[in-house]
């Protein structure tokens, strides 16, 4: 008996995104459609200005398409009001940024427990889970350090722990290795893959880094707002 294919975690359907810059309209995405299966380790590639970050913003529900639809975990994100969309992101999504974007006044463990506190998890439970997640990314000794006291690689591992601590279905990572040396970059990718393998979390990563692309289950190539190859 043939197995029933699982529905895609992310569906982008004929998404257009336009920005108005003065008198000029920039078409960042031009009718792009794609499906991302659950548990995938997906990489978006393309030159600067190809629309990678715009597509990640739509998938990460931090921006809305000018036209078209984006469904995440079966939810049409376009119909959600701002507060509901915030709650949706808190429950379903994690983010890893190129510049880490850790909160500098918080320690590593406090940064990691922040998403749990947004979700209303009790302080003690949030602390327990944050410490466990930091241990998983190999930072058990640095829990009390602030971002300024950590290396770039350590900061990015804290950011990964923060993205994963609430057990999201999807993690969106925008050029996570761009600010790291190759050794740290490799370690970050290994960490993310290990997390995907262990928890089944879907990763969507934009990158220029061939080493990151080499680790992907699925690669999408973008050019001028179009998907041109996979």
């Amino acid at each position, binding site marked *: 008996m043939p197995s029933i294919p699982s529905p895609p975690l992310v569906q982008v359907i004929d998404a257009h995104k336009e920005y108005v810059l003065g008198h000029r309209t920039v078409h960042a995405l031009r009718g792009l459609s794609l499906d991302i299966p659950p548990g995938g380790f997906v990489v978006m590639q393309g030159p600067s200005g190809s629309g990678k970050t715009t597509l990640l*913003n739509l998938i990460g529900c931090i921006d809305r398409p000018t036209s078209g639809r984006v469904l995440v975990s079966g939810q049409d994100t376009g119909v959600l009001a701002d*507060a509901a969309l915030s709650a949706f992101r808190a429950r379903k*999504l994690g*983010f890893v940024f190129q510049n880490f974007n850790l909160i*500098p006044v918080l320690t590593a463990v406090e940064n990691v427990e922040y998403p749990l506190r*947004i979700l209303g998890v009790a302080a003690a439970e949030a602390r327990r889970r944050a410490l466990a997640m930091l241990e998983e990314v190999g930072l058990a000794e640095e829990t009390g350090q602030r971002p300024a006291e950590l290396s770039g690689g350590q900061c990015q591992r804290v950011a990964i722990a923060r993205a994963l601590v609430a057990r999201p279905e999807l993690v969106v990572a925008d050029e996570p290795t761009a600010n790291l040396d190759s050794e740290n970059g490799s370690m970050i990718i290994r960490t993310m893959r290990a997390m995907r393998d262990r928890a089944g979390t879907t990763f969507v990563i934009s990158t220029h880094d061939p080493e990151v692309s080499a680790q992907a289950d699925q690669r999408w190539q973008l050019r001028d707002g179009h998907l041109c190859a996979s």
Partner: protein
Amino acid sequence: MNTWSLALRNVWRNTRRTAVTVMAVALSCAGLMLFGGYVSWAHIAGEVHAVMLSGHLQLFKEGFEEKGAGNPAAHALPNYEELRQLLVSDPVIGPRIELVTGQLLVQGMVSHAATQTSSTFAGIGALAGDIERVIRWNPYGLTEARDIPANRHLFATGPELADEDPEGITIGEGLARVLGIPPGDQAGANRPSLELMSLPPAGGLPNMVSASVRHTSIRAMEDLDNRLVVLPLALASELMFPGEPLHVTSVQLLLKRTADLPAVQQRIAELDARHHLGIEQRNCWEMNPNNVRSVGMLDMFFIFAFCIVAVVLVFTIYNTMMMGIVERTRETGAIRAMGVTRAGVIAMFVREGVVIGILGGGLGVVLGLVAAWCVNSSMILYTPPYYNVQAKLEIFCMRPPSIILASFLGCFIVAVVGAFFPARRASRMEIAEALRH
């Protein structure tokens, strides 16, 4: 990590900027406390001065206000003793009364033969012990003008009148100058002798009595001190009503608490209606309108100053918060991406305004109290409007304590308002745009 701990840490990210902002709030709070404390002092001083001049309340024969100014004795109260008994025994008024006494207001000419000078005078015929209680009324412990070394020579050191001295009078310092009498206490054997002359209300020739000056003194109002004669009630009555029993033009009431004045006035109006007393009443504020105007003007100054402080403070806080928000644009985008709502962003930044307000307001209260203590401990003298003696500058921050609370809350609310608008702006940033910052 809780939200308040995060707010506290965010506030101290830029120590110098935060310190300057907290100091701005603190100085504003301290300034409001000091000015508020001064206005409070002015209210209390105005009350004490008004009561000292005229008691809390005076009851006159009906029509006195309209017609009595030119010839007060012609409007003497015919039923003083009956009225006095009625007030003292009344269950509403009696317990609230400190003193009920009679006064006979007279006016006429005074001459000093030794210097061949004369002047018009406005006299107050009073009972010796009673007038001392009125002019010494000071339940708030104010530093009295008579206790300031620079003024001491202007005030009588002993009582202005004495029962055993039926012809002894006290005259205003300004009148003494006109009559060529040196200020201060007058030596027993060589006391200046004056002739007081007035037209009795019954008509006929002017009547005249002799008196000798015990002291010169001052009521701290130039107009009054240039014409004032305080004389024994019996002597005043003899001047206006020779050979007749004691007359008074007003019944003066001194209350235990000024706050009881409205209740007492209402009760007297009821008694007047019930017993057909034929009286009219004037309270200390109506008799001393300049005091009311002076403190009213200070109240307006205070409101004006508060508005200026509030506007400056709002802009200071706004500026500080805006700088912080611009610096933390990407961070704000990141926490929004993680699921913090717009309201959550507003709350986060407003919480920082609350922290600045509490720190600044708290420091301001301490600074204000220290500054007030320094001012009160030093002898800074000045002459308030309508006064002709120096007063000690005093700051009554604790009377009432609500001045401290109001100054603190005023600055705190302004700090929160100053934080709200930048916070709202931060919450409206597009997440993707903020992350690109």
